[in-house]
């Protein structure tokens, strides 16, 4: 590989904020550009990426696949996300997702002393406990987490509320206020702005599984152990608290990592790169909370 290339963070890392900003403009009000191709104005409806894959008690196969047709843009989006993750890494989450992007951009406007550090929270078990209920409650017919707690519904309405009465109406109800609270608490006021993504996003949870189990085959954020000095600068910068440092070498948990490149930029010896992995994924990662 070219020497200069090795010494500079990748082009996608350097220009990540511009790509995120572009995604916000394309997806969110006031423009809602991509949605208007299908006659929609937000993620609800044709573009819903969160409901079609959930099987509901009493639904036959035909009803289940009707859900894919009803949300065909959402289904195409999610299947595309999972496929690109398998081969290239979670670039949807880190660069393109307008929902995570809006929360992360928002968190950059919040002064440091107000930010909440969630890095002692055990993200992986909490995330999959939530995902288990996301599927289980619907399958048992006892309730649903799909629409009631959805930041894909909340964030576009937050952007639309200053302009549109229908979007404002979303917040004039208990569920809307709870969602706003979750977006603020786990997004905007979270250190790194990605605690919501890391804990409560069902697409992120599925995507993380693909990221972890496709590790051997696709590009991932990896540490070159020989170059790592164990300085720990990457630990503090990771928005999804995916890095730990056993025996003075950084290790990245592919179940929480997305290729945002924060650690790549922070690393003084350029030991972290997004590339096709030569090593096995960290077999068992001890996160900060586990050591405590």
């Amino acid at each position, binding site marked *: 590989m070219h020497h200069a290339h090795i010494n500079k963070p990748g082009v996608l890392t350097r220009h990540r904020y511009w790509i995120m900003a572009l995604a916000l403009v394309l997806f969110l*009000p*006031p*423009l*809602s*550009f991509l*949605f*208007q*191709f*299908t*006659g929609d*104005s*937000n993620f*609800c*409806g044709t573009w819903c990426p969160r409901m079609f894959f959930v099987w509901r008690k009493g639904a036959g196969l035909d009803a289940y696949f009707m859900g894919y047709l009803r949300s065909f843009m959402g289904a195409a989006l999610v299947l595309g996300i999972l496929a690109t993750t398998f081969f290239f890494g979670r670039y949807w989450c880190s660069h393109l997702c307008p929902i995570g992007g809006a929360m992360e951009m928002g968190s950059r406007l919040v002064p440091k002393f107000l930010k909440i550090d969630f890095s002692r929270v*055990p993200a*992986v*078990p*909490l*995330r*999959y*406990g*939530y995902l*288990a*209920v*996301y599927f289980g*409650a619907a399958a048992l017919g*006892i*309730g*649903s*987490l799909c*629409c*009631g*707690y959805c930041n894909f519904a909340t964030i576009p309405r937050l952007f*639309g509320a200053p*302009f*549109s*009465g*229908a*979007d404002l*109406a*979303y917040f*004039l*109800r*208990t*569920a*809307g206020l709870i969602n706003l609270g979750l977006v603020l608490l786990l997004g905007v006021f979270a250190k790194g702005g990605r605690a919501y993504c890391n804990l409560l996003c069902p697409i992120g949870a599925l995507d993380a599984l693909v990221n972890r189990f496709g590790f051997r085959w696709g590009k991932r954020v990896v540490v070159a152990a020989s170059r790592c000095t164990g300085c720990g600068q990457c630990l503090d910068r990771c928005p999804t608290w995916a890095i730990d440092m056993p025996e003075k070498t950084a290790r990245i948990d592919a179940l929480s990592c997305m290729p945002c490149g924060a650690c790549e930029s922070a690393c003084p010896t350029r030991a972290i790169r997004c590339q096709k992995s030569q090593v096995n994924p960290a077999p068992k990662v*001890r996160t900060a*909370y*586990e050591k405590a």
Partner: protein
Amino acid sequence: MRIKSLIAFFLAVLVSLAAGTHRWGDSSHAIGLMSANGGKTRHPSFLKSGWDRYTQITTATVLPPYHGDVSVALEGYPSLDYEIRLSAPVVDLGMHRLPVFKDNILYDLQPKDRLTLWVHMRTFPRDPVCGMAVREGDLSLNHKGHTVYFCAKGCLERFKADPERYKNIKGPQGRYDLAFYDTRTGQSVLKVPLIFKSKEEPPDASCAHQ
């Protein structure tokens, strides 16, 4: 370490179950199909009595070949204050023709149009004895720091005699409809039932007003 992860997992399951199974009852969603022969609703919207404002979201698709102008109204007794808003892109880039919504009339609905209406409702105070709507200025009583209004003297006397009996009766009850009518023929093209439920029906709903 494993134990900590297991505890975290089950904690997440418990909190998510509580969140996923609880219904606040101040908002609800219904899906409908609009057609010339009265349309069809997949299921009614259930709301809980006791809130002073409600939101109902109706997503409707226009079944071919129906097309026309459609008026929308919230029907039910006693009437509620309500506002209906159509969800639409803030900046319309003109990629799709959208129906125009003005003064509660949807203009120029075409086959296969999909639309989302947000209905925001406010309730009036009600007589706790019979459930009738009452207004400020009606007969009233100060009960535990709250002003309670009554439709007539008989209800007030009953309440005074046994206030505990009437404590659960708040807000609208029973069935309302978000009703859609073709403005040309006057025919109903969709009716979305909104059912307000309380823990108890008014105990003296049939009381004779004096």
